[in-house]
C-alpha cells in the first residue's frame, strides 16, 4: 500500500475508473509540480557541477571538446601560481572591507528606521534605491568617482588639504574603492532584512528596560542585537556567499578589466574568468571553481560559528525565557543607579 495520506473523501457513487484516475492525480500531481525545478536544476546545476569536477581533472581541449586525464595537476597548478594567492588575498580583503562596515551600517540604519518615524515607507524605500541598480552600473559610477587624477574623491581630498590617494595603483586603496561599491548596493537591502527582525522583537522588552533605567545604547546592545541573532547569522552567511564571488565590480574597475596591472584587485572569480575565457584553459578554471566553492564553504562555516558565538548568551535568554531572564543582567547593573536617576527627574 502506498503510504501517502489521501485527503480524498470516499464516495460510493463514483465509477471505479474515475476513482482510479483521481487517486493517480493525487499521487502523481505533487511530483509533476516540483518536476520543473528539479529538471532545470539537474540540467543546469547538478550536472554542470559534476562535470566541473571531471573537467578539473583534465587538460581540456577546446577544439576536440574532450580532455586528457591529468589527475590533480590542475589543482596544483592553481595553488602554485603566485597570482592565485594574490587573488585570494584580494578576495578576502574586499570581502572583509565590504561585509563588516556594511552590516554595522545596516544595523544602525535599521535601528533608526525602527523608531517611530514619520513617512516610514518613504525612508524605507529610499534606502533600497541603490539595490535596483546593476552592479556594473554602480561600478562604473564609483570607479569614476575614485579616479586617480580627476576623481571626485581625490579632488575633495586635495581641496581639504590632504594628499590624493592612488585608488588604482595601491592594492589596499583599490580594495576600499571596490568594497565601497559593494557596500553602496547592499547596505539598504540588509537594512530592511534586519529591520524586519527588529520589528519582531516584543516592544515590552524595551518598556521594561526603560522602566529599569537602561539607556538607548544599553537597550540596543542588550535587547536589539541579541534579538537579531538568527537574522544576523542569515545575513552574514548570505553576504559571505555573495562577497567571496565578487566579479562585476573588480571587472569594471578599470577599462582593461583584468584586475589591475599588478593584480591589485584581481579576485578569484575574476581570475577564473581570465583563465577560462582569456587563456581558454578550462581545466584550470574548473579546478579554480572547486577551490572557490571550498573557500566559500570554509569561510561560511567560520562566520556561522563566530556569529553564533558573538551573540549567544542574551539571545538564548530571549528565545528561551522572554520577559524574565532577559532583563536580569541589566537589573543587577542598574539597580543601584535607578533611585538616583529617578531622583533626577
Amino acid at each position, binding site marked *: 500500500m502506498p503510504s501517502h495520506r489521501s485527503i480524498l473523501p470516499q464516495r460510493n457513487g463514483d465509477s471505479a475508473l474515475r476513482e482510479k484516475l483521481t487517486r493517480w492525480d493525487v499521487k502523481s500531481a505533487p511530483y509533476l509540480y516540483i518536476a520543473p525545478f528539479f529538471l532545470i536544476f539537474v540540467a543546469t*546545476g547538478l*550536472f*554542470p557541477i559534476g562535470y566541473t569536477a571531471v573537467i578539473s581533472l583534465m587538460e581540456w581541449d577546446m577544439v576536440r571538446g574532450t580532455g586528457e586525464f591529468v589527475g590533480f595537476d590542475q589543482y596544483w597548478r592553481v595553488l602554485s601560481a603566485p597570482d592565485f594567492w594574490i587573488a585570494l588575498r584580494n578576495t578576502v580583503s574586499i570581502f572583509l572591507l565590504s561585509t563588516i562596515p556594511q552590516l554595522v551600517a545596516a544595523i544602525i540604519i535599521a535601528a533608526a528606521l525602527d523608531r517611530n518615524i514619520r513617512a516610514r515607507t518613504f*525612508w524605507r524605500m529610499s*534606502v533600497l534605491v541603490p539595490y535596483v541598480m546593476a*552592479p556594473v552600473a554602480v561600478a562604473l559610477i564609483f570607479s569614476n568617482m575614485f579616479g586617480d587624477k580627476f576623481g571626485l574623491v581625490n579632488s575633495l581630498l586635495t581641496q581639504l588639504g590632504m594628499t590624493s590617494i592612488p585608488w588604482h595603483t595601491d592594492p589596499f586603496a583599490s580594495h576600499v574603492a571596490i568594497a565601497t561599491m559593494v557596500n553602496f548596493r547592499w547596505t539598504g537591502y540588509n537594512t530592511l532584512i534586519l529591520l524586519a527582525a527588529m520589528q519582531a522583537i516584543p516592544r515590552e522588552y524595551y518598556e521594561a528596560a526603560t522602566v529599569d533605567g537602561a539607556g538607548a545604547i544599553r537597550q540596543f546592545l542588550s535587547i536589539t542585537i541579541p534579538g537579531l*541573532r538568527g537574522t544576523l547569522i542569515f545575513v552574514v552567511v548570505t553576504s559571505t556567499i555573495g562577497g567571496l564571488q565578487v566579479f562585476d565590480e573588480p571587472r569594471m574597475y578599470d577599462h582593461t578589466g583584468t584586475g589591475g596591472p599588478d593584480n591589485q584587485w584581481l579576485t578569484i572569480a575574476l581570475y*577564473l574568468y581570465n583563465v577560462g575565457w582569456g587563456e581558454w584553459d578550462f581545466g584550470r*578554471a574548473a579546478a579554480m571553481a572547486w577551490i572557490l566553492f571550498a573557500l566559500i*564553504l570554509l569561510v561560511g562555516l567560520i562566520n556561522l560559528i563566530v556569529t553564533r558565538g558573538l551573540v549567544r548568551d542574551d539571545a538564548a535568554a530571549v528565545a528561551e525565557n522572554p520577559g524574565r531572564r532577559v532583563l536580569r543582567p541589566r537589573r543587577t547593573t542598574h539597580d543601584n543607579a535607578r533611585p538616583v536617576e529617578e531622583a533626577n527627574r
Partner: protein
Amino acid sequence: MPSPSKNVRRARRFSRPSPWVYLFLGVVLLASVFPFYWSFLIGSGDSYTVRDPHMSWLPGGNFWTNVDKVVNDPSVNFWRALWNSIYSSTLIAVSVVFFSTLAGWAFSKLHFRGRGRLLVMVVATMAVPMQLGVVPLYIMFSELGWTGNIGAIIIPSLTSAFGVFWMTQYLRQAVPDELIEAARVDGASSFRSFLTVGVPAARPAAAMLGLFTFVSAWNNFFWPFIVLDRQDPTLPVALSLLQSGYFVDYSVVLTGVLLATAPLLLLFVFAGKQLVSGIMAGAVKG
C-alpha cells in the same frame, strides 16, 4: 503603583524620535541618491567635464547629445540590449513565479513521499555559487550552438531555489487545509484546486517574487557576459562595452548608466513599496 514619571517614560519609545534621527536618515538618503545625481552631472557634460577641477554642481547641457551617442553607438547596440533585457527578465520573472508557485504549492500543501528531504535539497542548492557550473554550461551551450543566443541566459534561470522556498513558506501559512479539502469534495482535480485556491492566495508573495527576480535578472552580469555575443548583449553587458577601449568618454559612459538604470528606477517608483514590504516580510525573524 505606577508613578506618572514611569508612564511618561513608557510612552517615550513610541513618541516621535529626535530630529537627529531624521538628519541621520537624510544623510543616508543623500548617499543613496548622490551617485545617480553624479552620473547625471557627468552625463550632461562633455568629455572634459570629468577632468574639470572647477566642475559645476549644476548639470550641463549635453545630456541629449550623450544620449544620442549611447543609443547610436554601433559597438554597443543599445536598443538590441534594451530589448534583450526586457525580454529575458520578463520571461525569467514569469517563469520563476509560475514554477515556484507550483512547487511551493506541492511542498506546502500536498502530501507525498520524500517531501521533507526534497525541500531540504532545494534549499541546499542555494549555497552553490554560479562559478561552479559556468565552464560546463558554456561547453554545453556551445555544443548546442547556443552561445550568443539569449536563450542561453534564460534557460538556466527559468526556476529558482529561492523562489520555491519563498512560495513554500508563504503558502504554508496563507492557505488553510480545509479550503483545499473543500475544493476536493467539490470534485476539482489537483491542478484545478491549485488554480482556484493556490494561485489567488499566492498573489502577494508572487508579486514580490516577480519583482525580485526581474531586478536580479536585469542586473545579472557574470553569465551573460560570458555567454552572450557582444553584438547581441543585455544592458549590463552593453554597459561594460562602453568602457572598453583606451579613450573612455565618461560623460557617455555615465549617460549609458542612467539609461540602463532608468527602466528599473521607474519600476521601483511604481512597485517599490511592494518590494520593500516583501523584503521586510521575507526576512528570517527571531
